[in-house]
């Protein structure tokens, strides 16, 4: 299977083509089967591939050379060159020739992402069949969703930066298409554009970073670049610059300060999209990319520090905004931004394993929370305002119970998934810098608080649902329910299974990722997660876990105090006392307005200036050319009508005039002809006689 990796990408892409071309005509059952079937098959193939990667790699190595296929047993990696995109040029020049193979890489890191993307993606596809059942754009939705899966898998499996970038842009496109899925509403289209443009800013950084690395190492293959860095092939300054540029790209895709503003607006899309793209998979692409380039960041401590600081501050900053949002999806969106901040915090302190671990668990519980909120929204006929919810626990028992699991998981309560991954991140931060650890802890407390607030406003307290709606509330359909249950199971058990931290060799995910992240530590740039654990005694570790648990529980208790009963009056009183602070938080610290006033205003000025240059200068040239052309045309027309036509007419007139004279002789009188003839004879005779 490893040498057929491209099938995993091709399947959803085929689904995209089929649904896109035929979906509208062949109807919903066809779309459902193709849309879910291809992704399900891709999931099975992924499982098979990862199994072979784990177990069967030596036999592939033993099978000998295959064209375009190679395995690296030590690092646990399989490389498959599907196609020479830009074939290598053999000119022997001094400049590095641009060669880009269409390279797919399956190593232990991409294996994790592959399973998360296809697995969670498949569940969300199934959920969507129920959620989108009534939508007239059903086939369009699944077309985009399949294209997204194909792009995301290209991103994950891409073994060369440009291949990864194709996926990177593909998911950006799908994100744009799906945010604006209900494009007949102006603000949805606006949100899609905002996401797209903000991401472009990041992508510019990504491309520049890649080109910098290419200039230094002469290859676009990620693993080759990383090996080059490990063997100390480039100055630290260049690596720092490249790392920072790549991180700009990651900031755009993964919604970090200062480019996070698009993600909350992206909630305009259908809820399964928010779950799949804007929580579980696409937004983690930045984290994945940073982890992919772990060697680069470890060789550039300054860049790493920036990653950690940006991640930590985003985690805290977004959590504060999450406290005061009233739209259920907006809360989850800021929560996602905050959790992504945690992942970057982990990557920034060198705990790449912990970052990927959190990516995985976050995919489980955030998908669960989004899909749960989708079920709530679905049951309330697209009501998203939490102020119009409340007391839904009896009305929606399954959604409520699964949501409970997601809530406890994200709050970091032992032994649910979030606890293990967040704890690992905080551990890494503690080791690196106490300040970052405190920031992380406060963020964790806020996370517990705003999630409890969400639970309270939605499921507990008194009902504030519109009385007309009250009797129409219905539990989600089967397809949605079972997906919620499956994700709830993953959220509960995922942490224990993947990351039980003690003894260290029990930590499944860490050991699995070791071959990918190992080897970096040898160069002393930083330490990876597996090594770092041993620097800290078990007692400290337990103590830290206890502290973070205590913070989480404190957050939950505060939340329960304010939101468990009543209609949230207690919280309103606090908000009133907080005054301006509350307003600021509610308005998202007015960051969007700040951007409007600074960046956008400047940008509009620039546009205005460019417009003026265009009108005055460029248009001037164009108009000048036009005027010259018109003038010369007039001259040419004058010449043509007077001189050329004049000559032609002159010939006509002279012929007519001459014939007018000659015509006089043809009078029709026979005798005048005869007289002429006689006269002529007479003249001839005279000539003959006298001139002889």
């Amino acid at each position, binding site marked *: 299977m490893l040498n057929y990796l491209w099938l995993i990408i091709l399947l959803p892409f085929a689904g995209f083509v089929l649904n896109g071309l035929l979906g509208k005509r062949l109807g919903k059952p066809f779309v459902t089967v193709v849309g879910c079937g291809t992704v399900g098959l891709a999931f099975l193939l992924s499982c098979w591939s990862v199994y072979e990667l784990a177990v069967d790699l030596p036999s592939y190595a033993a099978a000998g050379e295959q064209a375009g296929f190679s395995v690296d047993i030590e690092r646990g990696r399989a490389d498959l060159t599907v196609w020479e995109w830009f074939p290598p040029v053999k000119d022997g020049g001094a400049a590095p020739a641009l060669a880009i193979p269409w390279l797919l890489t399956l190593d232990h890191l991409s294996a994790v992402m592959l399973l998360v993307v296809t697995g969670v993606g498949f569940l969300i596809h199934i959920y969507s069949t129920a959620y989108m059942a009534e939508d007239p754009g059903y086939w369009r939705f699944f077309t985009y969703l399949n294209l997204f899966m194909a792009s995301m898998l290209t991103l994950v499996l891409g073994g060369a930066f440009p291949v990864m970038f194709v996926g990177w842009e593909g998911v950006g496109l799908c994100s744009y298409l799906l945010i604006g899925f209900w494009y007949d509403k102006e603000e949805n289209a606006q949100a899609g554009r905002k996401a797209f443009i903000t991401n472009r800013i990041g992508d510019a950084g990504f491309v520049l970073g890649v080109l910098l690395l290419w200039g230094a190492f002469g290859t676009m293959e990620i693993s080759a670049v990383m090996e080059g860095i490990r063997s100390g092939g480039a100055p630290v300054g260049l690596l720092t610059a490249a790392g920072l540029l790549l991180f700009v790209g990651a900031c755009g895709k993964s919604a970090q300060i200062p480019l996070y503003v698009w993600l909350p607006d992206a909630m305009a899309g259908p809820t399964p999209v928010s779950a799949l793209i804007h929580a579980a998979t696409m937004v983690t692409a930045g984290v994945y990319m940073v982890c992919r380039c772990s060697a680069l960041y470890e060789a550039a401590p300054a860049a790493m520090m920036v990653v950690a600081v940006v991640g930590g501050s985003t985690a805290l900053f977004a959590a504060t905004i999450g406290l005061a949002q009233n739209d259920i999806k907006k809360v989850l969106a800021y929560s996602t931004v905050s959790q992504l901040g945690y992942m970057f915090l982990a990557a920034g302190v060198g705990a790449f394993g912990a970052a990927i671990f959190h990516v995985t668990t976050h995919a489980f519980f955030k998908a669960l929370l989004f899909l749960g909120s989708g079920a709530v929204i679905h049951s309330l006929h697209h009501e998203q305002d939490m102020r119009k919810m409340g007391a839904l626990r009896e009305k929606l028992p399954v959604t409520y119970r699964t949501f409970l699991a997601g809530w406890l998981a994200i709050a970091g309560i032992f032994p649910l998934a979030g606890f293990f991954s967040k704890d690992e991140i905080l551990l890494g931060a503690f080791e690196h810098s106490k300040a970052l650890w405190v920031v992380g802890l406060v963020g964790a407390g806020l996370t517990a608080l705003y999630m409890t607030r969400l639970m309270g406003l939605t499921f507990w307290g008194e009902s504030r649902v519109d009385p007309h709606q009250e009797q129409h509330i219905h539990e989600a359909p089967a397809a949605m329910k079972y997906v919620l249950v499956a994700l709830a199971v993953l959220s509960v058990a995922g942490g224990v299974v993947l990351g039980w931290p003690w003894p260290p060799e029990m930590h499944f995910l860490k050991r699995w990722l070791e071959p990918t992240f190992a080897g970096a530590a040898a160069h002393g740039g930083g330490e990876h997660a597996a090594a770092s654990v041993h620097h800290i005694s078990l007692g400290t570790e337990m103590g830290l876990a206890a502290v973070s648990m205590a913070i989480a529980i404190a957050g939950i208790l505060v939340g329960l105090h304010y939101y468990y009963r009543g209609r949230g009056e207690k919280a309103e009183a606090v908000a009133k006392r907080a005054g301006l602070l509350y307003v600021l938080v509610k308005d998202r610290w007015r960051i969007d307005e700040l951007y409007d006033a600074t960046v956008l205003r400047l940008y509009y000025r620039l546009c205005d200036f460019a417009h003026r240059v265009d009108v005055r200068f460029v248009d001037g040239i164009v108009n000048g050319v036009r005027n010259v052309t018109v003038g010369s045309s007039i001259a040419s027309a004058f010449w043509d009508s007077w001189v050329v036509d004049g000559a032609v007419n002159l010939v006509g007139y002279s012929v007519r005039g001459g014939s007018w004279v000659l*015509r006089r002789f*043809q*009078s*029709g*009188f*026979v*005798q005048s002809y*005869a*007289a002429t003839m*006689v006269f002529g004879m007479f003249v001839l005779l005279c000539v003959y006689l006298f001139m002889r």
Partner: protein
Amino acid sequence: MVPTGHFLALSAVLFTMGVIGVLTRRSALVIFMSIELMLNAANLAFVTMARGGPAMEGQVFAFFVMAVAAAEAAVGLGIIVAIFRRRKTTDVDQVAQMKW
């Protein structure tokens, strides 16, 4: 024997009478007769010049002219009859349609 010059003088007088008749008379028939006069003046000149010599060309030419004159008379009279039937006149000044 009458000298040759007399014959030629008569021929010239006859020819001149014919030319004057053609140029001045209006009736097609009279014009026609004047043409015959001119032909016969020419014939007289031919036979005069052939008189006394061994060569026969003059006489032969006179016969040719007579043959042509006969044919011409037939065709010409036919045309004149046709015109008369159509226009009830033989005045050539009335038949001047053939112009530009």
